[in-house]
Protein backbone atom coordinates (compact mmCIF):
# COMPACT_ATOMS: atom_id res chain seq x y z
CA UNK A 1 0.00 0.00 0.00
CA UNK A 2 1.35 3.39 -0.94
CA UNK A 3 2.43 5.45 2.03
CA UNK A 4 2.80 9.18 1.99
CA UNK A 5 5.41 10.18 4.49
CA UNK A 6 4.90 13.92 4.59
CA UNK A 7 1.59 15.79 4.63
CA UNK A 8 -1.61 13.96 5.40
CA UNK A 9 -3.64 13.11 2.33
CA UNK A 10 -7.28 13.92 2.74
CA UNK A 11 -9.96 12.70 0.40
CA UNK A 12 -13.15 14.54 -0.25
CA UNK A 13 -15.05 11.25 -0.37
CA UNK A 14 -16.54 10.22 2.94
CA UNK A 15 -15.30 6.68 2.99
CA UNK A 16 -13.03 4.89 0.63
CA UNK A 17 -12.14 1.32 1.40
CA UNK A 18 -9.51 -0.48 -0.59
CA UNK A 19 -8.69 -4.06 0.19
CA UNK A 20 -5.02 -4.90 0.72
CA UNK A 21 -5.01 -7.62 -1.92
CA UNK A 22 -5.73 -5.07 -4.61
CA UNK A 23 -2.19 -3.82 -4.39
CA UNK A 24 -0.10 -6.90 -4.89
CA UNK A 25 3.09 -7.09 -7.00
CA UNK A 26 4.21 -3.71 -5.86
CA UNK A 27 7.31 -2.63 -7.71
CA UNK A 28 9.09 0.63 -8.18
CA UNK A 29 6.82 3.17 -9.79
CA UNK A 30 6.34 6.82 -10.45
CA UNK A 31 3.27 8.52 -9.19
CA UNK A 32 1.68 10.76 -11.73
CA UNK A 33 -1.63 12.47 -11.52
CA UNK A 34 -3.46 13.71 -14.56
CA UNK A 35 -6.40 15.93 -14.06
CA UNK A 36 -7.04 18.45 -11.37
CA UNK A 37 -4.63 18.79 -8.50
CA UNK A 38 -6.02 19.48 -5.10
CA UNK A 39 -4.29 21.54 -2.41
CA UNK A 40 -5.06 18.90 0.17
CA UNK A 41 -3.01 16.32 -1.68
CA UNK A 42 0.59 17.25 -1.14
CA UNK A 43 2.47 14.26 -2.44
CA UNK A 44 6.14 14.22 -1.63
CA UNK A 45 8.68 13.06 -4.20
CA UNK A 46 8.12 9.40 -3.54
CA UNK A 47 8.63 7.21 -6.54
CA UNK A 48 7.18 3.77 -6.98
CA UNK A 49 5.31 1.89 -9.69
CA UNK A 50 2.15 -0.10 -9.25
CA UNK A 51 2.16 -2.80 -11.90
CA UNK A 52 -1.24 -4.31 -11.29
CA UNK A 53 -4.65 -3.17 -10.16
CA UNK A 54 -5.39 0.50 -10.02
CA UNK A 55 -3.91 2.70 -7.35
CA UNK A 56 -6.06 3.38 -4.32
CA UNK A 57 -6.04 7.05 -5.32
CA UNK A 58 -7.72 6.23 -8.61
CA UNK A 59 -10.30 3.99 -6.99
CA UNK A 60 -11.08 6.75 -4.52
CA UNK A 61 -11.59 9.30 -7.27
CA UNK A 62 -13.91 6.90 -9.07
CA UNK A 63 -15.84 6.33 -5.85
CA UNK A 64 -16.17 10.07 -5.42
CA UNK A 65 -17.55 10.55 -8.93
CA UNK A 66 -19.96 7.64 -8.53
CA UNK A 67 -21.22 8.95 -5.20
CA UNK A 68 -21.93 12.36 -6.67
CA UNK A 69 -23.59 11.01 -9.81
CA UNK A 70 -25.89 8.66 -7.92
CA UNK A 71 -26.41 11.05 -5.00
CA UNK A 72 -25.69 8.25 -2.55
CA UNK A 73 -26.33 8.71 1.15
CA UNK A 74 -23.15 9.06 3.24
CA UNK A 75 -23.68 5.73 4.94
CA UNK A 76 -23.82 3.82 1.63
CA UNK A 77 -20.64 1.78 1.42
CA UNK A 78 -18.87 2.02 -1.92
CA UNK A 79 -15.71 0.07 -2.61
CA UNK A 80 -13.79 -1.26 -5.59
CA UNK A 81 -16.02 -4.31 -5.65
CA UNK A 82 -19.26 -2.36 -5.83
CA UNK A 83 -21.08 -2.82 -9.11
CA UNK A 84 -22.73 0.18 -10.72
CA UNK A 85 -25.92 -1.78 -11.16
CA UNK A 86 -26.32 -2.63 -7.48
CA UNK A 87 -25.65 0.99 -6.55
CA UNK A 88 -28.61 1.91 -8.74
CA UNK A 89 -26.90 3.31 -11.82
CA UNK A 90 -29.06 3.06 -14.89
CA UNK A 91 -27.76 3.56 -18.41
CA UNK A 92 -27.96 7.34 -18.27
CA UNK A 93 -26.07 7.39 -14.96
CA UNK A 94 -23.45 5.08 -16.40
CA UNK A 95 -22.72 7.29 -19.39
CA UNK A 96 -22.58 10.32 -17.11
CA UNK A 97 -20.16 8.53 -14.84
CA UNK A 98 -17.99 7.73 -17.86
CA UNK A 99 -18.13 11.41 -18.85
CA UNK A 100 -17.16 12.38 -15.31
CA UNK A 101 -14.21 10.00 -15.39
CA UNK A 102 -13.10 11.31 -18.79
CA UNK A 103 -13.18 14.86 -17.47
CA UNK A 104 -11.44 14.04 -14.21
CA UNK A 105 -8.63 12.01 -15.74
CA UNK A 106 -8.35 13.62 -19.16
CA UNK A 107 -8.98 10.38 -21.00
CA UNK A 108 -11.32 9.16 -23.70
CA UNK A 109 -13.30 5.97 -23.17
CA UNK A 110 -14.61 4.00 -26.12
CA UNK A 111 -18.08 2.48 -26.11
CA UNK A 112 -16.72 -1.06 -26.16
CA UNK A 113 -14.60 -0.45 -23.09
CA UNK A 114 -17.40 1.39 -21.33
CA UNK A 115 -19.72 -1.54 -21.82
CA UNK A 116 -17.34 -3.92 -20.08
CA UNK A 117 -17.12 -1.84 -16.91
CA UNK A 118 -19.32 -3.31 -14.22
CA UNK A 119 -17.51 -2.43 -10.99
CA UNK A 120 -15.74 0.57 -9.55
CA UNK A 121 -12.51 -1.43 -9.75
CA UNK A 122 -13.09 -2.11 -13.47
CA UNK A 123 -13.41 1.62 -14.05
CA UNK A 124 -10.27 2.41 -12.09
CA UNK A 125 -8.29 -0.28 -13.93
CA UNK A 126 -9.45 1.01 -17.30
CA UNK A 127 -8.52 4.55 -16.36
CA UNK A 128 -5.02 3.52 -15.43
CA UNK A 129 -4.65 1.56 -18.64
CA UNK A 130 -5.70 4.61 -20.65
CA UNK A 131 -3.44 6.90 -18.64
CA UNK A 132 -0.48 4.61 -19.29
CA UNK A 133 -1.09 4.85 -23.00
CA UNK A 134 -0.91 8.63 -22.96
Amino acid at each position, binding site marked *: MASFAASPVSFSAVSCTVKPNQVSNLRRASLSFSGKSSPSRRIPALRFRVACSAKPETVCKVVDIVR*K*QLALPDDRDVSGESTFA*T*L*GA*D*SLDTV*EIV*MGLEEEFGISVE*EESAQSITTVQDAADLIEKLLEKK
Partner: protein
Amino acid sequence: MRIGFTKMKLDCYQRTFAHSSSSLTPIQLPAHLETHLWYVKPSEVKNESLLKQYLDILSPRERENVMQMRGEELRKSALLARTLVRTTIARYQINSQINPRSLKFRKNIHGKPEVDWQFSNDSLPPPLHFNISHTSSLVACGVTVDSQIGIDVEEKHRSIKHTVLSFARRYFSKHEIQFLASITDPQVQKLEFIKLWTLKEAYVKALGKGFSGAPFKTFTIRFKEDSIHQASEIVVDSFDEPTELTSNWQFSLLELANSHYAAICTEKHAASAEGKRNVPTKLTVWKTIPFVVDECVSGTDAVKTIYG
Protein backbone atom coordinates in the same frame (compact mmCIF):
# COMPACT_ATOMS: atom_id res chain seq x y z
CA MET B 1 -48.66 -21.78 -5.53
CA ARG B 2 -52.02 -22.21 -7.18
CA ILE B 3 -52.89 -19.92 -9.98
CA GLY B 4 -56.55 -19.69 -10.77
CA PHE B 5 -58.09 -17.81 -13.61
CA THR B 6 -61.27 -17.32 -15.47
CA LYS B 7 -61.28 -17.25 -19.23
CA MET B 8 -61.90 -13.57 -19.56
CA LYS B 9 -60.89 -11.26 -22.32
CA LEU B 10 -59.06 -8.28 -20.96
CA ASP B 11 -60.84 -5.51 -22.79
CA CYS B 12 -59.64 -2.01 -22.69
CA TYR B 13 -61.31 0.69 -20.60
CA GLN B 14 -61.67 -1.84 -17.85
CA ARG B 15 -60.21 -2.16 -14.45
CA THR B 16 -59.96 -5.81 -13.62
CA PHE B 17 -59.40 -7.09 -10.15
CA ALA B 18 -57.78 -10.47 -9.88
CA HIS B 19 -60.38 -12.95 -8.72
CA SER B 20 -58.07 -14.45 -6.17
CA SER B 21 -54.92 -13.27 -4.52
CA SER B 22 -52.69 -15.32 -6.75
CA SER B 23 -54.32 -15.07 -10.13
CA LEU B 24 -53.34 -13.34 -13.31
CA THR B 25 -56.04 -12.37 -15.73
CA PRO B 26 -55.13 -14.10 -18.97
CA ILE B 27 -54.88 -12.25 -22.23
CA GLN B 28 -54.44 -13.00 -25.89
CA LEU B 29 -51.09 -12.48 -27.52
CA PRO B 30 -50.73 -9.19 -29.32
CA ALA B 31 -51.57 -9.45 -32.99
CA HIS B 32 -49.13 -8.82 -35.78
CA LEU B 33 -48.31 -5.09 -35.72
CA GLU B 34 -49.66 -4.75 -32.20
CA THR B 35 -47.68 -3.85 -29.11
CA HIS B 36 -48.67 -4.37 -25.50
CA LEU B 37 -47.14 -2.27 -22.76
CA TRP B 38 -47.52 -3.09 -19.07
CA TYR B 39 -46.28 -0.90 -16.26
CA VAL B 40 -46.10 -0.82 -12.48
CA LYS B 41 -45.54 2.12 -10.19
CA PRO B 42 -43.44 0.95 -7.22
CA SER B 43 -44.96 3.65 -5.02
CA GLU B 44 -48.34 1.93 -5.38
CA VAL B 45 -47.07 -1.42 -4.17
CA LYS B 46 -46.72 -1.23 -0.41
CA ASN B 47 -48.13 -4.47 0.90
CA GLU B 48 -45.33 -6.49 2.48
CA SER B 49 -46.98 -9.86 1.98
CA LEU B 50 -47.58 -9.04 -1.67
CA LEU B 51 -43.91 -8.20 -2.09
CA LYS B 52 -43.05 -11.52 -0.44
CA GLN B 53 -45.35 -13.24 -2.90
CA TYR B 54 -43.45 -11.57 -5.73
CA LEU B 55 -40.12 -12.63 -4.30
CA ASP B 56 -41.43 -16.15 -4.26
CA ILE B 57 -42.00 -16.37 -8.01
CA LEU B 58 -38.46 -15.29 -8.87
CA SER B 59 -35.69 -17.74 -9.62
CA PRO B 60 -33.03 -18.17 -6.90
CA ARG B 61 -30.56 -16.22 -9.03
CA GLU B 62 -33.02 -13.35 -9.52
CA ARG B 63 -33.73 -13.30 -5.79
CA GLU B 64 -30.03 -13.06 -5.11
CA ASN B 65 -29.68 -10.18 -7.55
CA VAL B 66 -32.58 -8.34 -5.97
CA MET B 67 -31.14 -8.72 -2.47
CA GLN B 68 -27.76 -7.44 -3.65
CA MET B 69 -29.24 -4.09 -4.64
CA ARG B 70 -28.11 -1.40 -2.22
CA GLY B 71 -31.10 0.30 -0.70
CA GLU B 72 -34.74 -0.57 -0.18
CA GLU B 73 -36.06 1.44 -3.08
CA LEU B 74 -33.62 -0.16 -5.48
CA ARG B 75 -34.46 -3.63 -4.18
CA LYS B 76 -38.14 -2.94 -4.66
CA SER B 77 -37.86 -1.75 -8.24
CA ALA B 78 -35.52 -4.66 -9.09
CA LEU B 79 -38.07 -7.05 -7.57
CA LEU B 80 -40.93 -5.44 -9.47
CA ALA B 81 -38.98 -5.55 -12.72
CA ARG B 82 -38.53 -9.32 -12.57
CA THR B 83 -42.08 -9.79 -11.27
CA LEU B 84 -43.47 -7.74 -14.13
CA VAL B 85 -41.58 -9.74 -16.75
CA ARG B 86 -42.64 -13.10 -15.32
CA THR B 87 -46.26 -12.26 -14.66
CA THR B 88 -46.72 -10.45 -17.96
CA ILE B 89 -45.38 -13.31 -20.06
CA ALA B 90 -47.34 -15.83 -18.01
CA ARG B 91 -50.58 -14.04 -18.88
CA TYR B 92 -50.23 -15.01 -22.50
CA GLN B 93 -50.56 -18.65 -21.54
CA ILE B 94 -48.59 -20.03 -24.37
CA ASN B 95 -49.24 -23.79 -24.46
CA SER B 96 -50.91 -23.56 -21.06
CA GLN B 97 -47.72 -22.41 -19.42
CA ILE B 98 -49.30 -20.20 -16.85
CA ASN B 99 -47.03 -20.35 -13.87
CA PRO B 100 -44.79 -17.26 -13.82
CA ARG B 101 -42.36 -19.07 -11.58
CA SER B 102 -41.71 -21.77 -14.14
CA LEU B 103 -40.45 -19.40 -16.84
CA LYS B 104 -36.81 -19.61 -17.70
CA PHE B 105 -34.73 -16.90 -19.29
CA ARG B 106 -31.46 -16.71 -21.13
CA LYS B 107 -29.42 -14.04 -22.86
CA ASN B 108 -28.77 -13.88 -26.56
CA ILE B 109 -25.24 -13.70 -27.90
CA HIS B 110 -25.11 -9.97 -27.17
CA GLY B 111 -26.62 -10.18 -23.72
CA LYS B 112 -30.23 -9.33 -24.56
CA PRO B 113 -32.61 -11.26 -22.29
CA GLU B 114 -35.12 -13.59 -23.92
CA VAL B 115 -37.44 -16.40 -22.81
CA ASP B 116 -35.94 -19.86 -22.81
CA TRP B 117 -39.08 -21.78 -23.71
CA GLN B 118 -39.16 -25.22 -22.13
CA PHE B 119 -40.87 -27.15 -24.88
CA SER B 120 -40.10 -30.48 -26.44
CA ASN B 121 -37.92 -30.43 -29.54
CA ASP B 122 -40.74 -30.78 -32.02
CA SER B 123 -42.54 -27.62 -30.87
CA LEU B 124 -41.63 -24.27 -32.27
CA PRO B 125 -41.00 -21.58 -29.68
CA PRO B 126 -43.75 -18.98 -29.67
CA PRO B 127 -42.81 -15.76 -31.44
CA LEU B 128 -43.27 -13.62 -28.30
CA HIS B 129 -40.72 -10.86 -27.74
CA PHE B 130 -40.38 -8.65 -24.72
CA ASN B 131 -38.23 -5.86 -23.38
CA ILE B 132 -38.15 -4.20 -20.02
CA SER B 133 -37.09 -0.84 -18.67
CA HIS B 134 -37.14 0.55 -15.20
CA THR B 135 -36.57 3.68 -13.22
CA SER B 136 -37.03 3.85 -9.47
CA SER B 137 -40.53 5.23 -10.01
CA LEU B 138 -41.85 3.16 -12.92
CA VAL B 139 -41.21 -0.30 -14.32
CA ALA B 140 -42.43 -1.18 -17.82
CA CYS B 141 -42.54 -4.26 -20.02
CA GLY B 142 -43.33 -4.24 -23.72
CA VAL B 143 -44.55 -7.33 -25.60
CA THR B 144 -44.82 -8.06 -29.30
CA VAL B 145 -45.24 -11.04 -31.56
CA ASP B 146 -42.91 -11.67 -34.50
CA SER B 147 -41.09 -8.41 -33.99
CA GLN B 148 -38.02 -7.34 -32.05
CA ILE B 149 -38.81 -4.74 -29.42
CA GLY B 150 -36.85 -2.28 -27.33
CA ILE B 151 -38.34 0.09 -24.75
CA ASP B 152 -36.98 2.77 -22.49
CA VAL B 153 -38.66 4.81 -19.78
CA GLU B 154 -37.27 7.88 -18.04
CA GLU B 155 -38.63 10.38 -15.58
CA LYS B 156 -39.49 13.53 -17.53
CA HIS B 157 -37.79 15.71 -14.97
CA ARG B 158 -34.84 13.50 -14.31
CA SER B 159 -31.78 15.51 -13.37
CA ILE B 160 -28.52 15.18 -15.20
CA LYS B 161 -25.13 16.28 -13.92
CA HIS B 162 -23.86 17.74 -17.15
CA THR B 163 -25.47 20.33 -19.36
CA VAL B 164 -27.70 19.04 -22.13
CA LEU B 165 -25.34 20.24 -24.84
CA SER B 166 -22.14 18.91 -23.28
CA PHE B 167 -23.88 15.56 -22.90
CA ALA B 168 -25.15 15.70 -26.48
CA ARG B 169 -21.74 16.66 -27.84
CA ARG B 170 -20.22 13.64 -26.16
CA TYR B 171 -22.84 11.05 -27.11
CA PHE B 172 -25.28 12.26 -29.74
CA SER B 173 -24.93 12.70 -33.48
CA LYS B 174 -24.27 16.03 -35.19
CA HIS B 175 -27.84 16.38 -36.38
CA GLU B 176 -29.18 15.72 -32.89
CA ILE B 177 -26.80 18.22 -31.32
CA GLN B 178 -27.98 20.83 -33.81
CA PHE B 179 -31.59 19.99 -33.05
CA LEU B 180 -31.08 20.43 -29.31
CA ALA B 181 -28.89 23.52 -29.71
CA SER B 182 -31.65 25.20 -31.71
CA ILE B 183 -34.03 25.06 -28.74
CA THR B 184 -33.77 28.30 -26.79
CA ASP B 185 -35.92 27.50 -23.78
CA PRO B 186 -33.72 25.43 -21.40
CA GLN B 187 -36.67 23.58 -19.91
CA VAL B 188 -37.97 22.55 -23.32
CA GLN B 189 -34.44 21.67 -24.35
CA LYS B 190 -34.10 19.38 -21.34
CA LEU B 191 -37.40 17.64 -22.07
CA GLU B 192 -36.47 17.14 -25.72
CA PHE B 193 -33.15 15.74 -24.59
CA ILE B 194 -34.83 13.16 -22.37
CA LYS B 195 -37.19 12.21 -25.22
CA LEU B 196 -34.28 11.76 -27.58
CA TRP B 197 -32.39 9.70 -25.01
CA THR B 198 -35.29 7.30 -24.53
CA LEU B 199 -35.71 6.90 -28.29
CA LYS B 200 -32.03 6.17 -28.80
CA GLU B 201 -32.00 3.70 -25.91
CA ALA B 202 -35.11 1.96 -27.22
CA TYR B 203 -33.50 1.57 -30.65
CA VAL B 204 -30.30 0.09 -29.25
CA LYS B 205 -32.29 -2.26 -27.04
CA ALA B 206 -34.46 -3.34 -29.98
CA LEU B 207 -31.34 -4.13 -31.98
CA GLY B 208 -30.23 -6.22 -29.03
CA LYS B 209 -26.55 -5.73 -29.68
CA GLY B 210 -25.70 -3.82 -26.54
CA PHE B 211 -24.53 -0.27 -26.14
CA SER B 212 -21.36 -0.79 -28.14
CA GLY B 213 -23.21 -2.60 -30.95
CA ALA B 214 -24.77 0.65 -32.01
CA PRO B 215 -22.85 3.52 -30.44
CA PHE B 216 -25.09 6.50 -29.95
CA LYS B 217 -22.98 8.76 -32.13
CA THR B 218 -23.36 6.48 -35.14
CA PHE B 219 -27.06 7.01 -35.64
CA THR B 220 -29.47 9.92 -35.73
CA ILE B 221 -33.06 9.90 -34.58
CA ARG B 222 -35.11 12.66 -36.05
CA PHE B 223 -38.65 13.72 -36.54
CA LYS B 224 -39.79 13.64 -40.11
CA GLU B 225 -42.54 15.86 -41.33
CA ASP B 226 -44.78 14.23 -43.85
CA SER B 227 -45.83 17.15 -46.02
CA ILE B 228 -48.85 15.37 -47.45
CA HIS B 229 -50.44 14.20 -44.23
CA GLN B 230 -48.68 16.66 -41.95
CA ALA B 231 -48.01 13.86 -39.54
CA SER B 232 -44.71 13.49 -37.83
CA GLU B 233 -42.75 10.31 -37.99
CA ILE B 234 -39.72 9.28 -36.02
CA VAL B 235 -36.98 7.87 -38.18
CA VAL B 236 -33.50 6.62 -37.61
CA ASP B 237 -30.55 7.20 -39.93
CA SER B 238 -27.41 5.24 -39.40
CA PHE B 239 -23.90 5.89 -40.69
CA ASP B 240 -23.12 2.21 -40.58
CA GLU B 241 -26.31 0.51 -41.67
CA PRO B 242 -27.79 0.89 -45.15
CA THR B 243 -31.17 2.58 -45.44
CA GLU B 244 -33.13 -0.61 -45.99
CA LEU B 245 -32.10 -1.79 -42.57
CA THR B 246 -32.82 1.39 -40.65
CA SER B 247 -36.20 1.78 -42.32
CA ASN B 248 -36.96 -1.55 -40.68
CA TRP B 249 -37.69 0.15 -37.38
CA GLN B 250 -40.59 2.20 -36.12
CA PHE B 251 -40.99 4.25 -32.99
CA SER B 252 -43.64 5.43 -30.58
CA LEU B 253 -43.09 8.01 -27.92
CA LEU B 254 -45.51 8.36 -25.02
CA GLU B 255 -45.94 10.33 -21.87
CA LEU B 256 -46.95 7.91 -19.12
CA ALA B 257 -48.72 8.83 -15.90
CA ASN B 258 -47.79 12.50 -16.49
CA SER B 259 -44.38 11.74 -15.13
CA HIS B 260 -42.43 9.61 -17.57
CA TYR B 261 -41.48 9.40 -21.20
CA ALA B 262 -41.65 5.95 -22.73
CA ALA B 263 -40.11 5.16 -26.09
CA ILE B 264 -40.95 1.97 -27.94
CA CYS B 265 -39.03 0.70 -30.95
CA THR B 266 -40.31 -2.28 -32.93
CA GLU B 267 -39.54 -3.98 -36.19
CA LYS B 268 -41.72 -3.11 -39.12
CA HIS B 269 -42.91 -5.80 -41.43
CA ALA B 270 -43.04 -5.86 -45.18
CA ALA B 271 -46.75 -5.13 -44.96
CA SER B 272 -47.50 -5.00 -48.61
CA ALA B 273 -46.08 -5.45 -52.07
CA GLU B 274 -45.23 -1.74 -52.10
CA GLY B 275 -42.60 -2.45 -49.51
CA LYS B 276 -42.35 -1.25 -45.96
CA ARG B 277 -45.10 1.28 -45.76
CA ASN B 278 -45.69 2.94 -42.49
CA VAL B 279 -48.62 0.99 -41.13
CA PRO B 280 -49.64 2.42 -37.79
CA THR B 281 -49.22 -0.07 -35.00
CA LYS B 282 -51.83 -0.54 -32.36
CA LEU B 283 -50.52 0.06 -28.87
CA THR B 284 -52.41 -1.01 -25.77
CA VAL B 285 -51.20 0.03 -22.35
CA TRP B 286 -52.07 -1.47 -18.98
CA LYS B 287 -51.17 -0.27 -15.53
CA THR B 288 -50.89 -3.22 -13.23
CA ILE B 289 -50.23 -4.48 -9.75
CA PRO B 290 -49.62 -8.15 -10.53
CA PHE B 291 -52.07 -10.51 -8.83
CA VAL B 292 -54.11 -7.55 -7.65
CA VAL B 293 -55.43 -5.29 -10.35
CA ASP B 294 -54.99 -4.50 -14.02
CA GLU B 295 -56.20 -1.29 -15.53
CA CYS B 296 -56.23 -0.59 -19.22
CA VAL B 297 -55.13 3.01 -19.51
CA SER B 298 -54.99 3.50 -23.28
CA GLY B 299 -57.10 6.46 -24.22
CA THR B 300 -56.96 7.92 -20.73
CA ASP B 301 -54.86 10.75 -19.35
CA ALA B 302 -52.31 8.26 -18.15
CA VAL B 303 -51.11 7.71 -21.70
CA LYS B 304 -50.42 10.62 -23.99
CA THR B 305 -49.04 9.80 -27.41
CA ILE B 306 -46.38 12.23 -28.50
CA TYR B 307 -45.42 10.40 -31.70
CA GLY B 308 -46.59 7.16 -33.22
